[in-house]
């Protein structure tokens, strides 16, 4: 169903996985640019610490736990796909999507509280970065969930099982970004 070009592997890495690594290179510099800007601003603005104190560390920590857990189920999906068990892989992928869903729900509750307290994106430098960075991350979570549902649908029919690993790598990256966002936005006060 696809060109011969796609099946070649001159570099010794399957085409899909190679592409995911390059996607991650581009993602590193997108998040890198945003976070580098945030960090240099944060260091220069001692007064942002008082603003950061209004964030909910427990919600952030819980979300970290949720994402770590969803990453775990993503590797289980990969393991199942490697064993050729597409149905099992699809189940684990959907579990991962569920994790992403919980993450987003917690995030929206958290944001609702903050907005009610008057901390909106216009409320100053810290909040601008807070909502933008977390929002960009959440956008990646949503994108990952959509792709994962699509991959799960084909994995269930035991098709394109290699995609399970590829989407997993992307998901772990989203997890890693959150691992850095959590201390940057919630802990450093």
């Amino acid at each position: 169903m696809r060109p011969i070009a796609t099946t070649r592997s001159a570099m010794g890495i399957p085409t899909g996985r190679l592409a995911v690594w390059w996607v991650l290179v581009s993602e590193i510099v997108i998040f890198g640019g945003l976070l580098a800007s945030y960090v240099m601003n944060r260091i220069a603005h001692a007064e942002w610490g008082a603003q950061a104190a209004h964030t909910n560390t427990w919600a952030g920590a819980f979300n970290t736990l949720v994402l770590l857990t969803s990453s775990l189920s993503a590797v289980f999906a990969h393991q199942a796909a490697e064993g050729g068990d597409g149905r099992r892989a699809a189940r684990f992928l959907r579990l991962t999507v569920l994790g992403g869903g919980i993450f987003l729900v917690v995030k929206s509750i958290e944001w609702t509280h903050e907005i009610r307290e008057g901390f909106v994106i216009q409320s100053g430098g810290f909040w601008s970065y807070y909502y933008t960075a977390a929002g960009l991350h959440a956008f990646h979570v949503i994108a990952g969930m959509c792709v994962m549902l699509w991959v799960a649908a084909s994995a269930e029919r035991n098709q394109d099982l290699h995609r399970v690993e590829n989407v997993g790598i992307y998901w772990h990256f989203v997890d890693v970004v959150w691992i850095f966002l959590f201390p940057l936005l919630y802990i450093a006060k």
Partner: protein
Amino acid sequence: MTGSEMSHTTAHAHPEGAHDAHHEQGWFLKYFWSTDHKIIGLQYMLTGMLMALVGAFMAYVFRMQLAFPGQSVPGFGVVTPGQYNMLVTNHGSIMIFWVAMPVLIAGFGNYLIPLMIGADDMVFPRLNRLSYQLFFLSVLVLATSLAVQNGGFGGAWTAYPPLSANKAYNLTPLGSSLWLVAVALEFVAFLLGGINFIVTSMNSRAPGMKAFDVPILVWTIVIASVMFMASVGPLIAGAVMLLFDQTLGTSFFNPTRGGDPILWQHLFWFFGHPEVYVVLLPAMGIVAEVMTVFARKKLFAYKTVIYTIIGTAMLSFFVWAHHQFVAGIDPRMANIFTVTTVLISIPIAEMCFVYIATLYGGSITLSTPMLWALGFMAEFLVGGVTGIYLGASGTDIFFHDTYFVIAHFHYTFFPIAIIATMSGVTFWFPKMFGRTMNEFWGKVHFWGTIIPFNGIFIPLFVLGAAGEHRRIFDYHNFPHLDTPGLGMLRMIATLSLVVMLAFQFVFIVNFLVSMFRGPRAPRNPWRSNTLEWTADSPPPHGNWPVLPDCHRGPYEYSVPGREQDFWPQDEKA
């Protein structure tokens, strides 16, 4: 899955009739919904060339305004200051983002990479189609941005905040946001395309094609894509931040509320400088292909060229702040960036020397593509050496943001986006359309472009040295610049531009007539080595009935002891 992909797989089993099945699909599906890399490449190329006409028209309007200030410009009318700013802004954005990028990287890259490495298509054909569709969408958004209320964005292609961020300052609330969205969409399109180029070139090379058997053009497009990918990220983040500043009222770049406008400048130029090399490298690649063919010469020191390309690519990430020497950055940083900027002359000079050395011992035919390639070298050298005045911090104090800068970067960008592109178009035209372009009119077009080109930009060097600053719609307010002598120079530049634009119609007519009426082209009209010339002209869907193998490097011309002076890569030893 589209029909094209279905028919395509069967094409491999290779009954001849399989290709015919492909032609039965509708005209729309074939040309607008195709996943074939050749169609997508041509889509990119033709869209880019049409945008070049738009950008050229804008240049015509504002040059006319400069030569004859306040008078009605034929075909446009009287230019207001706001329109003038809009025109220069969009001329710059269009020529870089919607002409140089799509034609050089996406156009030639899509068309040639699979053919040059002996593959039947890109590795992700549907991603490729999505890339073009996003690009096309960005064109539509850009066009919309010019048509909305209060007019298009006029804050220069660099879009420095607070001017770009605050509608109270730029007076174009819709235009500036739409412009930014268009640029961001274009970035995403090229990220998708870039991933495709990189992975295809890495993984899908013909059996036997080692890394150092890959044509220089493929190398340059891949390295350019990697550079684009590695540099554009911070600007994508910056574009989101600027968009929020514009529309939501955040304070990323707002100096009155804890932001810093200089952050945008850094994010922009961290991308903006590598971007110069992103478009330069594919141009150098095209020139390498054309020069070796028409000099019947092996490329002088192939590996050195690769290393200088990589060296240039790496170094170009270390020089960005030379665009900001006088922008309010810490003056101590300027010294570091002066050193790195001057250092970049090392790989670039080496690259130019190697290209010139390639001519040594050749048997040079001055066909139209070769004239363009040699024209590129001759003119690009001017752009290269004048860059030193700007990279050296001491003289940049004077030259920054004068017409000297404009002349300098047009001596680099024009050779890149027009001269090298023309070299490529005339060279690969027989492959793309199966017909040959007219040589005589090709040469008329060459001389009719290259002579007025110098007529436009040499006066601008002089104007820059006189202290004429950029983006001014009328110099009446500056007595030292409002002299008859400088006015005459402006007029010479404008008239040269009009002459040059007139000669482009020669190309358009030659292109269209040759496309439908030109003499049929054989498979390998230039007796070239690289794999694309072993496919039919134009190549069918799937490119080859049986994909070729590779047995040697791409530049084995005039090998002693062989009757023919070329040695195709797929020919068995």
